[in-house]
């Protein structure tokens, strides 16, 4: 039986990948953001997860509008990163855990979540930037990974309530598996931001801080929102909040907040970091 040790939420803004490549972590613009991460590294060193399930959204690298899965999960031995068109240097492939992937898939489908299963899956910045932030300072990435992609590109998007139920089912699937791995769940993206339209640059600090509190203490409260409620309050790409909510639902009902950081802005976005430990 695999054990879920806890969860992390982290931004996945592409510019962060550029800042890491160019060694800008100590620059005044970047320092308040990167200074949030050493406590996350210390926690990961303490709990030593074997597997990371990365809940993210594909921004047009692996999936196009010809076939757009609502929920997709990787079942590959490795996941390549690739050119996304605007200059971020592709990273080395990330190792997978196909045995655990398939056990999760079996369980999720039995639990009425009809996943798209991917034996080939390119992972974009939504996956790769969090990997760099959490483990990039290591010589070798010390975890096997399982990508879980949620559609935030083409409406209708799955509702926050549906994503919460998926997270619950994911937690059950991991804990029922035959693997003896320690698993960390990573919810990526967010928080408030909008890239498109006359409303580009929209940020809502008050709503973000409320969400960061609710994610820890009362995540079900966030399932009351529709996706359009979230867009109204957190901007068009604030819809990524469902990635956090899915992560949180996979954890125990009560969690211990180990660490948090919130910083405005990185690029067009308010960035949030949470480290949550599962109840024993």
């Amino acid at each position, binding site marked *: 039986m695999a054990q879920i040790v806890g969860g992390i939420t982290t931004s996945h803004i592409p510019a962060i990948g550029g800042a890491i490549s160019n060694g800008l972590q100590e620059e005044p613009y970047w320092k308040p953001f990167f200074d949030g991460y050493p406590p996350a590294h210390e926690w990961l060193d303490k709990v030593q997860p074997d597997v990371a399930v990365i809940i993210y959204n594909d921004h047009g690298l692996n999936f196009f509008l010809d076939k757009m899965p609502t929920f997709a999960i990787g079942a590959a031995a490795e996941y390549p990163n690739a050119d*996304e068109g605007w200059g971020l240097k592709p990273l080395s492939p990330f190792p997978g855990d196909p045995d655990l992937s398939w056990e999760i898939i079996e369980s999720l489908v039995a639990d009425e979540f009809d996943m798209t299963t991917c034996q080939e899956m390119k992972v974009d910045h939504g996956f790769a930037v969090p990997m760099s932030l959490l483990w990039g300072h290591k010589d070798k990435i010390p975890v096997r990974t399982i990508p879980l992609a949620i559609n935030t590109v083409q409406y209708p998007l799955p509702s926050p309530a549906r994503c919460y139920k998926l997270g619950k089912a994911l937690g059950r699937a991991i804990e029922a598996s035959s693997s003896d791995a320690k698993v960390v769940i990573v919810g990526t993206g967010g928080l408030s931001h909008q890239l498109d339209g006359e409303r*580009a*640059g929209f940020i809502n*600090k008050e709503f973000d801080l409320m969400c960061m509190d609710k994610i820890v203490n009362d995540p079900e409260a966030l399932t009351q929102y*529709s996706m359009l409620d979230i867009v109204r309050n957190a901007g068009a790409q604030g819809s990524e909040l469902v990635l956090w909510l899915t992560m949180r639902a996979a954890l125990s009902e009560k969690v211990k907040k180990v660490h948090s950081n919130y910083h405005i802005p990185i690029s067009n976005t308010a960035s949030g970091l949470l480290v949550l430990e599962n109840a024993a």
Partner: protein
Amino acid sequence: MSSTETQTTEIPGTTIFDGVQAQKGYQLNKMCYSFNDAECREAFLADEVAYCEKFGLTAEQRDAIKARNVLQLIEAGGNIYYLAKFAGIFGLGVQDVGAQQTGMSVEDFKAMLIAAGDD
């Protein structure tokens, strides 16, 4: 197609990329999706008109591409994630794109974002 929540709910300055937009913008987005590949970006730069022709863009989409105008591209069915790859060809990032859409200078747009952290 019956009216859906995404079509009846107005959020100012925001276009919800629903089935209507996804159909309208399919060829435009498909072209921009191709820009993941360096060879395709080079082919576009070598002969922009022919490249748009290859993907069957509408006149509205071709005009918006020619004008490098993001609001027009969204109006023509473009989705920001694919349009970002188009902008990338010219070395433009999301803050350049944000500034263009809001009619601000890039410096003013960045200052607005920093100010959002102050209150």
